[in-house]
């Protein structure tokens, strides 16, 4: 039985699915989003927060490119902070606590109200595929998905964003039950379907801490963590942002907490060996921390309210899969939590993921033509990483269908590029999370300059409405003009001393525009001129534009230097392998490199160079063989020409 026919079918209503489905509909295609329950769209099953280092960068980029996440968090944030305020702008990023339910409601409304997008409440039980020519890659082409009861939802392109639902298995102590997350069933059939069409799957693990009833927490003795008085938005379209509406609190574990955990380690599924999946090292469970860092006598715990209309508090820092009674005991050993009531217990969840070397940089899968994957199914963790992939997959599914060239973000222009490139070149053994240290071009890939970096890409993608794009361009031109003004503004130092340019002053460590205003004789005049140049922008936007201009100037010398160092390999970076390039035949490659290259099939030498296990020697061999391959082909072509 047919349930409908669409251009793009998106499976999953999480953060990846939302971006993919909205992008498809906004690009003018007929899209469907399949979810168990529309009220689950945009749910935050773990920490109700968005942003932070690397992740905040991703959200800023998603926003400029026309994605939804930035505006959603700006509208529903309760508590915002810019992290690393005392460090340089390249490693600053906004982080916001969301009102969890408000966020969900907001995303549900946007998705359900989007013209051209149909929400289908159903299970996705299987894939509809047709075989392609025997022995070829891809071996299949997608035709749609199978819903509950065998109904067929046809789609020319399908984007799978099923999160942790593939054979999800939850652990609380010795208890286990099937499920993708608290209160949601797992998807058992889809794993088998993916295997059937040739995917390799692996097992990953993640976890979440207990939630406490707010009224049962004694915050009177705890240190409050206030939000920023003048918060920074994620979205360049946000013109007003209220100050923090809640407080978070800080407390610590102690020797007694650690003793309780140690006594019960044998009941932890992680330590008893019941969990086979690999968990993230950057987000260890509290039992992990206590064992691995035995010398530390305490660990920080953040208490984060989950919303205005909920009584739940998220206990950040104590993710756990210990048995329920142990959770209660160790939580109550923590200062301020002596009488805490657990609304929900922490748990670990194991799930199947599709190792990401099985997708191309468009996020289209290699075994099945027209099938795209995005989000946690590809082994990443985090709402932001998921949303970024949803956008890339959604946009490229549309471009593929309409015959446009793929949109491939590059490492040197965005964190999206870093993310996608890492996905296609890395063997992900633990849930992948973005870090700024993954970006070679960190000094350029800043939160403050996402608008300037990505305006061209935004135009190419076409998700921003024309007037929005126009004002974005105007804003960027303004920033460039201010940078020029600062570079050329030469004046005497106010306290005497040789004349200097505003730009050179800004390049001094710790300098900012306010300081320039004071230290140059004509500093105030300069500031007034700059303010005037941004007068058409909102107060928030003007502040952000000013910050971008200042950090562009401050970093310019370092960025030039860093580009120089990175350009040494640049000629190899975009050298492409022919689609039928036979790595297995190159004896010259080390065994490890040969095996990985054969399996992962990088598109360029640059991608090959980032595959772990491919060493400088292997790259030399590859470039020699590529050159030889090209020469042979050229000779063949020449001899063909001669025959004519």
């Amino acid at each position, binding site marked *: 039985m047919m349930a409908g026919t669409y251009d793009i079918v998106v499976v999953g209503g999480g953060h990846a699915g939302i971006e993919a489905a909205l992008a498809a509909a906004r690009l003018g295609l007929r899209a469907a989003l399949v979810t168990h329950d529309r009220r689950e769209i945009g749910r935050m099953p773990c920490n109700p927060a968005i942003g932070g280092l690397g992740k905040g960068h991703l959200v800023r980029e998603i926003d400029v490119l026309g994605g939804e996440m930035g505006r959603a968090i700006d509208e529903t944030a309760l508590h915002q902070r810019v992290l690393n305020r005392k460090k340089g702008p390249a*490693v600053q990023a906004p982080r916001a606590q969301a009102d969890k339910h408000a966020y969900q409601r907001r995303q549900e409304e946007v998705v359900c109200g989007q013209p051209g997008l149909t929400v289908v409440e159903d299970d996705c039980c299987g894939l509809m595929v047709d075989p392609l020519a025997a022995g070829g890659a891809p071996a299949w082409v997608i035709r749609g998905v199978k819903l509950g009861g065998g109904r067929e939802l046809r789609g020319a392109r399908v984007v799978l964003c099923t999160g942790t639902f593939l054979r999800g298995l939850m652990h609380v102590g010795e208890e286990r039950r099937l499920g993708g997350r608290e209160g949601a069933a797992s998807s058992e059939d889809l794993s088998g379907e993916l295997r059937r069409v040739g995917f390799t799957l692996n097992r990953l693990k993640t976890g979440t801490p207990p939630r406490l009833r707010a009224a049962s927490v004694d915050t009177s003795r705890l240190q409050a963590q206030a939000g920023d008085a003048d918060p920074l938005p994620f979205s360049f379209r946000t013109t007003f942002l209220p100050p923090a509406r809640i407080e978070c609190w800080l407390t610590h574990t102690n020797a007694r907490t650690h003793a309780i955990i140690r006594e019960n380690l044998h009941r932890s599924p992680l330590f008893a060996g019941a969990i086979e999946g690999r968990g993230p*090292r950057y987000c260890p469970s509290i039992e992990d921390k206590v064992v691995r860092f035995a010398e530390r006598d305490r660990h920080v715990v953040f208490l984060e309210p989950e919303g205005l209309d909920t009584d739940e508090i998220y206990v950040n820092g104590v993710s756990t899969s210990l048995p329920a009674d142990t959770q209660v005991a160790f939580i109550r050993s923590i200062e301020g939590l002596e009488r805490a009531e657990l609304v929900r217990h922490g748990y670990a969840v194991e799930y199947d993921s599709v190792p990401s070397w099985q997708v191309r940089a468009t996020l289209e899968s290699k075994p099945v033509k027209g099938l795209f994957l995005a989000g946690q199914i590809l082994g990443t963790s985090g709402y932001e990483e998921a949303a970024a992939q949803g956008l890339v997959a959604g946009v490229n599914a549309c471009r593929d269908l309409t015959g446009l060239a793929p949109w491939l973000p590059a490492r040197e222009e965005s964190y999206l590029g870093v993310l996608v490139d890492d996905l296609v070149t890395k063997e992900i053994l633990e849930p992948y999370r973005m870090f700024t240290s993954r970006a070679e071009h*960190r000094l350029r890939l800043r939160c403050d300059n996402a608008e300037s970096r990505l305006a061209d890409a935004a135009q190419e993608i076409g998700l921003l409405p024309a007037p929005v794009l126009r004002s974005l361009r105007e804003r960027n031109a303004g920033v460039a003009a201010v940078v020029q003004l600062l570079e050329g503004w030469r004046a005497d130092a106010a306290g005497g001393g040789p004349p200097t340019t505003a730009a050179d002053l800004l390049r001094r460590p710790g300098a900012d525009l306010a300081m320039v205003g004071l230290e140059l004789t004509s500093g105030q005049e300069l500031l007034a001129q700059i303010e005037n140049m941004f007068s058409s922008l909102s107060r928030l936007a003007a502040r952000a534009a000013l910050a971008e201009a200042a950090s562009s100037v401050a970093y310019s010398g370092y960025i030039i230097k860093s580009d120089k160092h990175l350009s040494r390999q640049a000629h190899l970076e975009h050298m492409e392998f022919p689609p039928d390039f036979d790595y297995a035949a190159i004896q010259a490659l080390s065994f490890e490199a040969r095996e990985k290259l054969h399996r992962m099939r990088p598109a360029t030498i640059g991608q090959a160079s980032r595959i772990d*296990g491919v060493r*400088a*020697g292997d790259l030399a061999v590859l470039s020699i063989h590529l050159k030889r391959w090209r020469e042979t082909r050229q000779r063949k072509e020449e001899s063909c020409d001669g025959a004519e």
Partner: protein
Amino acid sequence: MDDTIVAVATAEGQAGLAVVRLSGHAAVAIARRIVLGDALAEPVVSHRARLAVLRWPLASDPSAGTSPAHASPGEFTVAPGQELDQALVLPLLAPHGYTGEDTVEFSCHGGSLPARLVAAALRAAGARAAGPGEFSRRAFLNGKLSLTEAEAVADLIHADNAAGARAALAQLRGGLEREIAAVADPLRGLLAEIEGAMEFADDEFAGPTPAALAAVLTEACARCERLVSSAPAGRCLRDGVQVVLVGPPNAGKSSLFNALLGEDRALVDAEPGTTRDVVSARVVRGGLLYVLHDTAGLRAGGGRVEMLGMRRTEETVAGADVVIAVSAADDPGTGVVAAPDGSVLLSVVAKADLLGDGGARAGVYPADAVLTASVTGMGIDNLWRRIESAAGSADLHAAAARGALLNDRHEERLRGGLSRLRELAALSGPEAPPAELSASYLRFALLELDEISGRVFTERLLADVFARFCVGK
């Protein structure tokens, strides 16, 4: 890499055994053409040596690459089928041989002739003479050697002196990689601390103190400088200590050159300007290789050919480790020679026997000039001692033992890394430089250092971060 190559693999004329190595997909087939008996009969067992009589290939062998009659080089007179030597024949089948290809090694009797004959016979049977370093290149391309190892092997092959060979061997055993790791590992640790403090903003990591940063930087710079300063030593060990004789025409340079060699190598004549090009010779003394260069005399005027010779002289001097300024006792001359940076200038008075008993005339020659007389051999041993000391032979032996055999690529990378570290040190003051800039400089320094051994970067860094920090809220 499609053809099969052959070369004598041991140094000429020294060892009791000489090894001829044959490598390539046709190695076994070609070897069979010169091996009598069933030493290479099917099935060929890898790594099993058999004694066999070798012969020149038969003229009738239709599969030989070239006609044996023509392939026979002028220096040998051999007939097709003639027996050459008895040798151990060792097949090493792919991928187990040194090059990763099918390889056959022949251990012949010592002395250079038997081995050269066998190699010639293999060429006559269809192999090609291997170019310099070609076996190592194949081994590298076949993934049998890392880049530094391959470079070390190439150096080892070219090392015709004990110290150079020892250095290459030490490097092959990871000497250089260890030295690089001693620089890079503390930097990596520092970077991990800085990155951790940036990435996990909420986790209360302070990052390294300015003092800790400075201490690690100072130590790393010092190690880098030591390594870079060993680059000339590496060059000396690999290519030999370059000793260049210069001086006015007819000062007796060529006679001195021959006396230092102990043989009549350079053409000696009383007419000025006899040596019109640079004549070079290699001498091994005390386990070190010296390359002596006899140059055209420096003087104004002279013909066009002589001018060209003088230009060559200048170029040779520019690459010298030791410059020997020669002047004749009967003609102190005027030529002042500028020795290039980092080289040592020795003054020598040749034909000192002409001075009679009077010895050095005060003020005419430098006080420390070595007086020599090539005819009598006077002062030659003394001059050699001065050359050895000028070349720093003790330091060279020490460098050889450490395995610090830097080539130009290593040196360039090391200098690059050192520059990044110095730039970072210059940014540092009482306060640590901004963390993201420190990280940037450290990263680039490490990229340069890692390129020496060809490592892959980011994942290791993150692994370091995770090993060090109890991260995550």
